[in-house]
């Protein structure tokens, strides 16, 4: 089967590169700060990949995944502090909880088509912010929640290294799941929903159940990323956990990298994550970050809805083709060949 070699090349090789990069990065990082930036970038990568379960497969855009991550973080923290669960048990339990909560949320958001999903996703961020700020007897409110260290006494650089690998593992699991779905019948149905929901339904795809299922999977991975962040970072504050900005960065990353490709969101996360960190170090933070994010998001949506990287590669390919043809001497046979090709493509 030609498919096998294709998928080996397009999925296998990048996977090896990614695994190798994750494996060697901590030993190459010159100082703990760089390592911690690496953890942050991996966190983005997991979030963007988790987001892409919904965004990439079904075409439904969520601006509220930041809230699901925040929920995962708070659930993890609260299960450790209030229920005395061991850190990583709490992490898993939190992901299960958030996935369970995603069912009613998805029910409200996905029952009708169109913008209601986006609206619910934004509303989710705003309402969770309100609730977590106000319910201070449980969440600590604006005072924040301190999540106990999973490895007490571990020095900070070592702590970063451990979490870098944990995040790396989570990313690989998320990618593997995405790949599994992508090639499955379930995934085919989801992609059909993205292309034409009515049509998919008329062919017998239970679109609502499919959308809900994939939303729950996405929520679970997002919650895992958020929970891991809580364990790594240690301090949760509603204002930052339930920020609209988190969701918009994730959307930007996924769209930038390309939502139709397994590695698109990872790529987007690496580019945007590093850029965020770089601009912060070089220029400090100004409200212009918002402006830049907004502009980029607008540009991507208006001109490159398939993602910047896919669009650029198409452009490069087109340019290269043109160069090829101008440099090479054309024979009549070549021209005839080209014409035949074009006709075949048009017929």
């Amino acid at each position: 089967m030609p498919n096998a070699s294709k998928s080996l090349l397009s999925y296998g090789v990048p996977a090896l590169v990614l695994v190798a990069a994750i494996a060697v990065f901590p030993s190459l990082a010159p100082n703990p700060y760089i390592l911690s930036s690496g953890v942050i970038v991996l966190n983005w990568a997991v979030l963007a990949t988790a987001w892409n379960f919904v965004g990439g497969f079904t075409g439904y855009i969520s601006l509220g995944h930041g809230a699901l991550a925040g929920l995962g973080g708070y659930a993890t923290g609260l299960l450790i502090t209030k229920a005395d669960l061991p850190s990583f048990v709490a992490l898993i339990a939190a992901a299960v909880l958030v996935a369970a909560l995603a069912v009613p949320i998805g029910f409200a958001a996905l029952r009708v088509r169109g913008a209601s999903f986006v609206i619910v996703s934004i509303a989710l961020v705003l309402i969770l912010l309100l609730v977590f700020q106000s319910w201070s007897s449980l969440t600590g409110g604006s005072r924040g929640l301190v999540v106990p260290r999973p490895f007490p006494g571990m020095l900070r650089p070592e702590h970063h290294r451990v979490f870098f690998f944990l995040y790396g593992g989570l990313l690989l699991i998320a990618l593997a799941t995405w790949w599994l779905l992508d090639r499955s019948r379930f995934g085919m149905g989801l992609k059909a929903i993205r292309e034409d929901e009515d049509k998919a339904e008329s062919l017998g795809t239970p679109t609502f159940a499919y959308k809900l299922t994939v939303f729950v999977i996405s929520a679970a991975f997002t919650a895992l990323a958020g929970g891991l962040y809580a364990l790594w970072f240690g301090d949760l504050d509603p204002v930052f956990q339930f920020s609209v900005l988190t969701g918009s960065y994730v959307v930007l990353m996924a769209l930038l990298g390309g939502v139709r490709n397994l590695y698109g969101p990872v790529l987007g996360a690496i580019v945007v994550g590093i850029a965020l960190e770089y601009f912060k170090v070089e220029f400090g933070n100004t409200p212009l970050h918002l402006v830049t994010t907004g502009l980029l998001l607008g540009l991507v949506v208006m001109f490159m809805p398939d993602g910047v990287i896919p669009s650029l590669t198409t452009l490069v390919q087109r340019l290269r083709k043109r160069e090829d043809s101008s440099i090479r001497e054309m024979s009549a046979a070549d021209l005839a060949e080209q014409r035949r090709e074009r006709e075949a493509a048009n017929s």
Partner: protein
Amino acid sequence: MRSPARRTTWAVALSATLFLTACGGGDDGGDKATGPIVVGISLPLTGDFSEPGKGVQEGYEAWAKITNDKGGLLGRQIELKILDDQSNADRVVADYEQLIGSDQVDLVVGPFSTRLVVPSARVAQEYGMLFVEPAGAAAEVFNQGFKNLFYAAPAVADDHYNHLAEYLLALPAGQKPTTVAYAAMDDPFAQGTAYGLKKKLEAGGVKTVVDEVYPPNTTDFGSIAAKIAAAKPDMVVGGSQYQDGVNLIVALQQLNYQPKLAAFSTAPTNPEFAKAIGNKTEGILSPTGYSQDAPYASNKEFVEKFKAQFGQAPEEDQANGYTTGQVVGAAVEAAGCAEQGECQQKLIDWLHSNTVETVVGPLKWDATGKPQGAHMIQQWVGDDIKIVLPADAKEADLVYPKPAW
């Protein structure tokens, strides 16, 4: 069909390289013993806390300049490295991570706002650094078990109103306020001030009739004011930052509610305050940790040189930044060192067992880094705000009941 696959491969490989190289550029510090002492600070220069953040920044800058003009610390010049944390907790951690791990600064001092102090103090703790901070006044800061943290101000939030509580509880039964309404921002500091007073007054038998907590972004105070006005308490206490205090006072005035006493934290000491509420400031009380007129030795110098440097007199935020500098400076001079490593523990040990003279008076700390003092109480009298408590520092007498606003 091979080209899309190859494309993806290249793109991933490329980005991985990018990822590795982009992260490769950390610079190391210069000569340790003779070069300048680099002090790393992260401050909210943008975002929710940008206004006080900039105030604290001026305080730090004034401290560096004044100290450097006198020859620096241990004969070394002070160099400030200030990063902006956008009022954001993950930024503040990344900032200190960068300052300590990548920029290899010699000392770090604190950011602004309680909610940023705890995460950043933990970074400092886990790198074994001393952490003196100008803003973490809430009780939470001191029960995290930090051993490296010192709050460079006279009192924590809960103790700000101590002098006022004493005064009120000492009043004869007929005059003593019997009912109080509290409205506090859901912020560890602001709420701490109001609840500190509430706890003491309740213990003294004064009844709480309204107890409202509002989130930091509240802009409409109509209904909270309505509730307070309807309960007609003798006294209203606002646990406020700045704008929320102004808004609440305006909303109360719109309802024509006239309490016998009104106390608000922070807002009334702001220079813009009187104008913001249309000069209807009559009798409003506020605790303050700093006064330009305070008689402490270094304060005169501070006010004078600050005016020369920035063209205006320092406020509390500026004084807090300056005080932090003074505390760190004193520790460095005493320990005779200022770099990462063992020296940090020496600095911490020295501060735990000594008193430091600052522009807000002598400061000493308990084992958790909590300062042992109380705030002065100021009151608006005419067009000016004057110290009225404690008795030994007062510029005017406390007016009670306060005139109508």
